[in-house]
């Protein structure tokens, strides 16, 4: 028999409106996302989709999210809470929009500006439309506002606690002047903020229409959808055995020092509740890999959403969760003035540590940790005729295996979802020949199910000189397997010089190369699942990885 949400007979008026409202909210959030990407000025938002949109209830509970980047989606929840803490509902007016990026008021890193807009219907706030977007430059010590050698947030750019960016009269001139004066690319900043505003107004317009269609009980139907998600998430937790599982992993240094930085997590599951506790994680680091609580919520929300992926996309999935971060001064709860711009690597590793811990529960659920590496490669140079060129791409690694399936090779996992750059695009834009883009066979962890393989990409510089800026991960640490499965291979990067010399690259490197040199990048493999039985007969039941 199919389980029921309620023991009391449901109110048919609400029951009839739930699925249409779920679909309408999801559609609205997605259209906000599309509108923002269409209107965005900088390519990081327009092409790579480094932006996110969501809808919230007046009390700050998440109502629906666009299908975009989990890394950014999760951090909108603390952003809305940050706005509400500074601007109570009663102080808000129609046409307002609030802006923030401060990691100590609900932000993540400074280029991500969150914008929140109250939606009024019949004189009352019925919801918030919210969007964040990675802006090209918000000042600081380096163009792009993600300085790899930053040791303080003050070096990373302009810090904005929640401020009123716009009222019914338009953008606040004072705020606009401060923003423009603090960016190397002010037109870009203004244009991308307008793209966010476009998304919020589209969302608000649609929400009012939805509220009209749903009728006077709009808020009740919203509550019912959140309760439904909570119910589905709790059911998934209740179906798993109780227990406590821990996982440990490490970053290849903090961007300044190369000593490994450890992340520890324990999961305590009891009944239909879960505690995720990062106690034992390294203290705050000097480099920019610190992750604010808002950033860490993305990792936790991602995991909670995977428990019942068919559930409505709202706050209900967080109800069974208690997220515990160490006191301020931790890698995952840094104290002012920690540098935070490179928090993505930390959030991805934390997310995979949660997956690793969960894979130990006796239910045979979940997946082995993904390699979780999103290698950022920026190649630039000067052609023989003096013209300059540059391009950046993100290279994915292997996914973790699960009880029923091997991990996928070369795929964006966990809180990221970047696409690759086609070979024909690279060779058209840069004097490079891509000699291979292939699966790095055997790099996934072994086991009953093998971890996903990393990939190999090789680039030969055809003319002139150039620079390689490489930001990898897992050159030292490996994605461990689950339930006896093997660990994935580490990442490797090397340059074969035209004279035959081989130069190995560390996890973060900037080196020169010249015509004829070949750069080979190999990304890490995902963890395997299950121990291979020792071979006792001529027909072993398990397979080994190719």
């Amino acid at each position, binding site marked *: 028999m199919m389980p029921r949400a309620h023991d009391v007979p449901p109110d048919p008026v609400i029951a009839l409106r739930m699925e249409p409202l779920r679909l309408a909210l999801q559609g609205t959030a997605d259209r906000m996302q599309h509108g923002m990407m269409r209107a965005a000025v900088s390519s990081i938002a327009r092409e790579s989709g480094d932006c996110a949109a969501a809808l919230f209830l007046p009390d700050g509970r998440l109502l629906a999210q666009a299908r975009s980047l989990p890394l950014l989606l999760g951090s909108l929840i603390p952003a809305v809470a940050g706005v509400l803490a500074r601007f109570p509902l009663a102080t808000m007016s129609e046409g307002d929009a609030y802006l923030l990026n401060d990691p100590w008021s609900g932000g993540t890193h400074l280029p991500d500006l969150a914008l929140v807009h109250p939606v009024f219907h019949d004189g009352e706030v019925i919801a918030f439309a919210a969007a964040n977007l990675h802006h090209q430059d918000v000042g600081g010590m380096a163009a792009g506002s993600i300085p790899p050698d930053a040791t303080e947030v003050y070096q990373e750019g302009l810090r904005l606690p929640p401020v009123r960016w716009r009222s019914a009269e338009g953008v606040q001139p004072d705020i606009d002047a401060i923003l423009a004066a603090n960016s190397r690319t002010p037109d870009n900043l203004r244009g991308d903020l307008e793209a966010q505003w476009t998304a919020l107004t589209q969302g608000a317009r649609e929400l009012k229409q939805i509220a009209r269609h749903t009728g006077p009980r709009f808020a009740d139907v919203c509550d019912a959808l959140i309760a439904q998600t909570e119910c589905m998430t709790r059911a998934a937790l209740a179906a798993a055995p109780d227990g406590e599982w821990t996982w440990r992993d490490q970053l290849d240094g903090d961007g300044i020092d190369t000593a490994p930085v450890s992340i520890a997590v324990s999961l305590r599951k009891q009944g239909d509740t879960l505690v995720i506790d990062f106690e034992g994680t390294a203290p705050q680091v000097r480099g920019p890999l610190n992750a604010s609580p808002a950033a860490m919520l993305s990792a936790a929300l991602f995991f909670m959403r995977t428990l019942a992926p068919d559930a409505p996309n709202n706050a209900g999935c967080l109800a069974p969760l208690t997220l515990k971060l160490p006191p301020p001064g931790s890698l995952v709860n840094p104290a002012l003035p920690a540098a935070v711009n490179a928090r993505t690597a930390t959030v991805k590793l934390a997310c995979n540590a949660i997956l690793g811990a969960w894979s130990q529960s006796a239910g045979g659920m979940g997946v082995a940790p993904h390699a979780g590496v999103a290698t950022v490669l920026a190649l630039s140079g000067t052609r023989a005729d003096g013209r300059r060129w540059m391009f950046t791409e993100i290279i994915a690694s292997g996914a973790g295996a699960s009880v029923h399936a091997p991990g996928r090779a070369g795929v964006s996992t966990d809180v990221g979802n970047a696409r690759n750059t086609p070979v024909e695009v690279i060779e058209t834009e840069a004097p490079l*020949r891509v000699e291979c883009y292939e699966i790095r066979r055997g790099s996934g962890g072994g086991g009953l199910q093998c971890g996903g393989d990393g990939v190999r990409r090789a680039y030969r510089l055809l003319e002139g000189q150039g620079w390689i800026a490489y930001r990898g991960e897992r050159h030292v640490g490996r994605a461990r397997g689950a339930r006896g499965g093997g660990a994935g291979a580490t990442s490797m990067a090397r340059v074969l010089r035209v004279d035959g010399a081989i130069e190995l690259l560390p996890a973060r490197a900037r080196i020169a190369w010249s015509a004829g040199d070949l750069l080979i990048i190999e990304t890490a493999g995902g963890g395997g699942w299950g121990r291979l039985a020792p071979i006792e007969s001529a027909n072993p039941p398990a397979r080994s990885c190719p």
Partner: protein
Amino acid sequence: MNASWSLAVDMGGTFIDAVALRSDGHVASLKHPRAGRRLAEPVVEALDQLCAQAGIGADDVGRVVHGSTVITNLLLELNEPPVALVLTRGMRDVPVLARQDRKELYEPVIMPAVPEAKLFPEPLRFEIGGRIDAEGREVEPLDLSAVDAIADAVSDAGVRALAVGLLFSHRNPTHERALRAALHARLPSLHISLSSEVDPQPREFERWLTTALDAYAKPLAASYLHALADALKVRGLPPLRLMRSAGGTAPWHDLAEQPIGLAMSGPCAALQGVAAGLAASDPAIVLDIGGTSADISILLDGRPTFTDALECGGLPIRQRCADIASIGIGGGSVVSVLPGGALRLGPRSQGAWPGPAAFGLGGDLPTLSDALCVLDRLPPRLAGGIVLDRAAAEAALGGVAGALGLSVLRTAEAVVGAAAAGMAEALKTHAFQRKLDPADAVLVAIGGGGAQHAAEIAELAGMRCVLVMPHAGVMAALGMLYSPDEGDVSLAASESPWDSLPPQGEGPHSLFAPMTTVFVPAGWSWRVTPDQALALEAKA
């Protein structure tokens, strides 16, 4: 031309629609159940029946046009044998790695982007040396010495079709052509698709996958189209022409050579039919609901809009085709309740076989059509002769009702409401992404189920007016005869499918016209317009 009749036959997943159009505008049509998985036979049966019913002899027929979902369904089902690929050295995994992103963000287990084992398993992916650069210059000659080993392996594996994908072949196809010639010299009966011919545009993954799917469809497409062409020849009918995804028709053997061009054949035909039949040139959103899917598209200035990318069964295909968003909601969509009490419609479909429970063909899962049946929104007897079994529909919905804690009637309302919402959301997303606010457009309903849901969808999308085209149920077949290269045709105005209905009235009301069922919700009125469309209008 002496011959006074044109024949069009559209094969959908559920029914085959056949239409005969006389030069004076007279129309005869029928719906023929596809019954199972047969391909050429039911098409021929439908034509035979239509000719018999309308008294048309082979000599009276000037042309026969066919549109088909055969290729679409083949790509959805992937039951054909895999194909071999020959790709540039170092690139044999490109079709598997795809674009490295994933579709479902929160599914713990990440699904492969492409069903590798079904389409082109690793042992059938070969590499060959030779490079063309971004300017189309040869920078390394093609290594033809590898051809013998590839031909041996392909032949040993019993592969019937092969796709060639070389970098920058869209700039310079000489390597791909030389490779085809060398392979044909060894294996004359091998079907070969070249990426420089199927999709000559940059970005290798999309071009190569499209080419691989073309090769994948070729053996079946070739035998089906040959069988059909032969059957027409035996009957003395004119040579078969096919409706292309990109609009217009082409001789059948062109599409046997490049079957991927048929992927949106039927939906494109329907759109052409609407464009020809609509008097006004105001923006229109066209909604075509069938047994397994709903298609949404836009007419601007009275013309279909086109795009260069479509998706079929989750696989991206890059081909010029009518810009149609297809979602998996149709009459056969299965209703389910997730743990936690969440109602869901689809993506599973009962399709035509075994079909909704109410059809009495052996299906016992609850579907959208069963919900419509319970709400008395379907006629007792459907086009094609199926008599509905209401008790079976109620029984099928009983489990869902129990899980939701609602009565069967309320459950049916919830199902129909969810269907309307799902289609309204797809419609809004499609329109807004093309910078059209649905509120500024009229909704045109076609297909067996379009008029059933159109007014409810319009209301959700903020639209005030729905037009149901005459012959809405066979619009795709009719549209084939309106294709631009077929010359002008027009329908006789005297023929109205609405003759059996009151010419105007107010909802809630179900109108059962031949081949079309129209639902007029409360707050909406209907009237037959002078040009024989049925207009539904929201009251202020």
